[in-house]
């Protein structure tokens, strides 16, 4: 394993020190491991808190700032934060109007955030939870832990964050978040496995002409192993899989993200996005807004995920609202 690292045990502490040094607009509490905006929540404004395992940077810490999250609580690599951390984040940013918890649908995240929410209520902090489960690679059934939360998390955080900034109340902010999640689907492919600092070796072995299709963001193998395909065929597979689950008419404005898994250079992402855009347009989908880059990553994995949201005008308007965070910034 070759990484910029001091020791696998100190990855999160060391990275938090770097985030603190890099972003004066953020306040980083390295002891409690929470990242908040430097300025306190305006009284009466609903706050947005998210978090999860680390290794998905810029998610979530990179999305703390005006128009998006109020706080992020990063767990160990691929390990959801503990309830104490989530509680500390929620109490730190609650202005009395309540806190929306954006939780990706994983057994661990769900349980830890639930425990935190109970503790928060005990301390008089009202919470509402938005569960993100957009990954169509997983069938939502009694045979699984339900669909995984992946790329749509960014959409939920951006759009719900904008409504919170505009003064939406707890219910409204949670509602729009849930609507965005319900309207979003993702699908991902990996060209390589990722290596966690703790294990020191790739999670799976792929031959030089093999890819994993239907992967999540935690380095686990995907739904199936396939032969490497040209970008245009991978785009076709990905677009087809997402649209099977999320029918779109040409009137629906789509918000589309082509996301890199951390080890894929932007040149390749642009190339793949060109193919994705062409496949979407062939299928009559109108790309209203798009993002191309490394936003919801899986350590050093080479790969990409496609997330599509069947937006409506309200969502678009909130998408376009000003945002100023380390990783997403416009209109400000």
């Amino acid at each position, binding site marked *: 394993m070759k990484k910029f690292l001091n020791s*696998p045990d100190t990855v999160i502490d060391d990275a938090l020190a770097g985030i603190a040094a890099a972003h004066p607009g953020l306040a980083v509490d390295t002891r409690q491991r929470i990242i908040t905006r430097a300025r306190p929540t305006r009284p009466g404004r609903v706050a947005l808190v998210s978090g999860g*395992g680390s290794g998905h940077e810029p998610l979530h810490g990179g999305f703390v700032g005006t128009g998006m999250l109020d706080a992020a609580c990063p*767990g*160990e*690599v*691929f*390990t*959801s*934060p*503990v*309830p*104490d951390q989530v509680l500390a984040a929620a109490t730190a940013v609650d202005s009395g109007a309540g806190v929306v918890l954006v939780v990706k649908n*994983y*057994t*661990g995240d769900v*349980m*830890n955030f639930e*425990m935190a929410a109970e503790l928060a209520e005990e301390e008089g902090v009202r919470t509402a939870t938005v569960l993100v489960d957009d990954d169509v*690679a*997983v069938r939502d059934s*009694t*045979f*699984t*832990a339900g669909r*995984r939360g992946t790329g749509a998390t960014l959409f939920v955080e951006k759009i719900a964050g904008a409504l919170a900034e505009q003064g939406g109340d707890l219910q409204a902010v949670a509602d729009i978040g849930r609507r965005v999640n319900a309207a979003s689907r993702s699908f991902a492919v990996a060209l390589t496995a990722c290596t*966690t600092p*703790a*294990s020191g*070796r790739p*999670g*799976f072995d792929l031959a030089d002409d093999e890819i994993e299709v239907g992967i*999540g963001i*935690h*380095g*686990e*193998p995907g*739904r199936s192993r396939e032969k490497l395909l040209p970008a245009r065929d991978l785009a076709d597979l990905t677009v087809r899989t997402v649209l099977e689950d999320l029918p779109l008419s040409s009137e629906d404005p789509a918000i589309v993200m082509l996301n890199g898994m951390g080890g894929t250079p932007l040149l390749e992402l642009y190339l793949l996005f060109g193919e994705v855009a062409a496949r979407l347009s062939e299928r009559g989908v109108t790309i209203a807004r798009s993002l191309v880059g490394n936003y919801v990553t899986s350590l050093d994995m080479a790969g990409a995920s496609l997330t599509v949201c069947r937006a409506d005008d309200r969502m678009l308007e909130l998408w376009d609202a000003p945002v100023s965070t380390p990783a997403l910034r416009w209109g400000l």
Partner: protein
Amino acid sequence: MDSVTIDLARAWMRAAAESMDEHAEELTRLDAAIGDGDHGSNMRRGFSAVAGKLADTDFPSVGSVLTLSGRTLISTVGGASGPLYGTVLRSAGKRLTGSTASPGELLDALRDGMEAVRGLGGAQVRDKTMVDALAPALAAYSAALEDGADLGAAVGAAARAAGEGAQATVPMTARKGRASYLGERSRGHQDPGAASTALLFAALASVVGAPDVR
């Protein structure tokens, strides 16, 4: 030894911490195959925090050792295993309010723990989770007690059954937790949480001096 003392409970948690540390890489390797490769470091981090807490706390009861251990796991582990193991120990601890506990009281306490985990995580037997080590362990323990075994023998039987239960998860298809995402591809691998549960019972067996445990 015919009853569980506060010191024994403490020794159990310490032995568990040593065992998790020793087997961390193995657990992580199991988790990397069908999960996200953090179970070993999760268990090591959590139980080493538990060991730290045990050193500087006075405990009024057997249960308080388990409850504090469970709370510590919850605040230091994260992931699925933190709340789940934390809940097992917290729930088990509640019932054991005395300074000693009989073998039967320990059984009832652990059953509470298992029920709490099933309530929290919703896993059934054969879903390929820690429940597949926990359930046979408690069944064997209970059967041994009915057969008149003492604490050591009963715990020994539980530990053996937990190990066998963990082994038996290999051919199963996961239906809970991360491994469920893999569907059929989860077969052929041992569930890491079942493996760590087997370690937990082996640690108990070692401190009660149970005969022939691995």
